[in-house]
């Protein structure tokens, strides 16, 4: 994943706000990257650009040599389906669907057999430790479990990249650690993970941390498992 001089402006004229001010990055396949920063630092905007959901005002963004924002809206939807999985702070599970159906959602537009979809969803639920609760509704389980379902939904179609926006933001420490452990496991299996977080403790699980402030990339911290080496930018 490569971003080059990405800039995002919201609004026009005097009310214009620059959320991201020319950020460049290179993320290798299988890497776990944490993005940190205060509220309004531009980290969620940057994540949405990485998620092929928010066209940058300026700059280029490639994934697997695909110039993502040169794709049309529909092709970008296909790109998201094939390459990306999303986990949000608020889980965004569909309340009227069972856990299994929620996990099956990304497979709904795909022309594969119902049984195969079910098997994939059950496998994803099993990976997050919720395979026995597939028939329950989201409001019948805890917040931690809901986030695990959201994680299962994000990985059900085996995307190479997982984007997590404050995945532990609404969870207590125990549940947060469970989610981090799951992310660690997925990363260990080769999945690229981009995680936005406020919490440095959880960011330390990533191989690299990008710190943003006021729309700018201000620091890059590398974690080789033994020590952190920071670099002010």
């Amino acid at each position, binding site marked *: 994943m490569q971003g080059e001089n990405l800039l995002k402006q919201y609004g026009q004229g005097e009310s214009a706000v620059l959320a991201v001010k020319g950020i460049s990055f290179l993320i290798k396949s299988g890497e776990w990257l944490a993005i940190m920063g205060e509220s309004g630092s531009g980290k969620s905007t940057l994540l*949405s650009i990485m998620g092929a959901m928010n066209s940058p005002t300026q700059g280029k963004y490639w994934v697997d040599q695909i110039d993502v924002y040169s794709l049309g809206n529909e092709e970008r939807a296909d790109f998201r389906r094939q390459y990306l999985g999303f986990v949000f702070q608020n889980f*965004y599970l569909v309340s009227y669907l069972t856990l299994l159906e929620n996990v099956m959602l990304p497979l709904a537009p795909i022309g594969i057999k119902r049984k195969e979809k079910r098997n994939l969803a059950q496998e994803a639920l099993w990976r997050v430790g919720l395979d026995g609760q597939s028939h329950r509704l989201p409001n019948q389980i805890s917040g931690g479990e809901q986030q695990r379902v959201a994680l299962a939904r994000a990985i059900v179609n085996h995307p190479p990249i997982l984007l997590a926006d404050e995945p532990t933001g609404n969870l207590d420490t125990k549940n947060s650690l469970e989610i981090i452990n799951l992310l660690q496991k997925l990363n260990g299996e080769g999945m690229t993970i981009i995680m936005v977080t406020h919490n440095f403790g959880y960011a330390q699980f990533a191989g690299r941390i990008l710190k943003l402030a006021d729309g700018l990339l201000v620091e890059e911290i590398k974690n080789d498992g033994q020590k952190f080496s920071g670099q002010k930018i």
Partner: protein
Amino acid sequence: MNLGSIALRNLRRRKTKAIFILVGLMVGVSAVVTFCTLVKAITEDIAHKLDEYGANILIVPQTQNLSLTYGGLSLGGVLFEMAEIKQADLEKIKSIKNAANIAAVGPLVLGVVDVANTKVLLAGIDFKAIQYLRPWWTYQGTLPDKEGLMVGAEAAKALGIKKGEYLKVNGETMAVTGILNSTGSQDDQIIFTPLKKAQSILKKEGRISMAEVAALCAGCPIEEMVRQISAILPGAKVMAVKQVVKSRLEALSHFQKAAYVFSALVVLVGALVVLVTMMGSVKERTAEIGIFRAMGFRSKHIMQIILSEAGIISVVAGVLGFFTGLGAAQAVLPFFTSSYHVSLPIDPLLAGLALAMAITLGLGASYYPARWAANLDPHEALRAL
């Protein structure tokens, strides 16, 4: 899990909104079904009544100088003392092309007779055809069999006669078997007796003064029938009781127009209800749609979900609307007609049209909300929360 099952699950979850849309569509469909059914039923009823109305083609001799009215409408005249038609000629009517449309042919002989020193118009008619020719007649007593008299209300009053009494007609004593209740027509001034008896009294055996034909029915080519009868009875003048048909059909046409305008309004309101409710529902689901888009649903997938929901509701609304419309038509029909014979059978064409209308209306009114949802930017949709 596919797009259709997402639509179904959402409908189950948002029952109130689904029911609201369903009712909106159903009211529109049922209004159209009600009006179409009513118009059809009333048309059939009018046709039936016209059949029952009695004579609607008159056959009179070519010479005419006596004004005659029928049902309050001027129908030309007949000079009953001078010109007659041969009764045997009436048989030819059975050979016309549209003979199947003829319910009854009623020969009528007219003549002035002397009753208690009073000149009275005597009419000889075929009482067997009376149910077709004078279905509105009500009377006290019985219809004459071979020789009796049925006296018009005014004539009975003028002659001071009651049923069961006897009258001397041209010197011949005859029993009054019945007194006709007032009809408001010239029948009130006439005394009636069976055709053969009248011909005998008037010495007009084998001849008639005029004939009435009960022929009207829905779609009958009445003008064509008049032409056909004229062709086989060159010595007679054949006339259609056009006014009756015309006024009834004009009234129906007015009702039809009003019904269509009202239906269109109800349908428009129904469409607006669907549009507004669907739009509200879609806006409520902004986050959900944002998630779908983030997960890689294309615009067409979102449209498919929303339009599937609308389609499911529309089909149900079409079926329910059709039967509700039929029920409503059945309920209000007595206010439009006093007939009890009118049936409201299930018309497959109307059922199909109701279904097609519900689907068109439901999908049409949902298209804009679906388009709006499909064009939602996933980032904006999620950011708006």
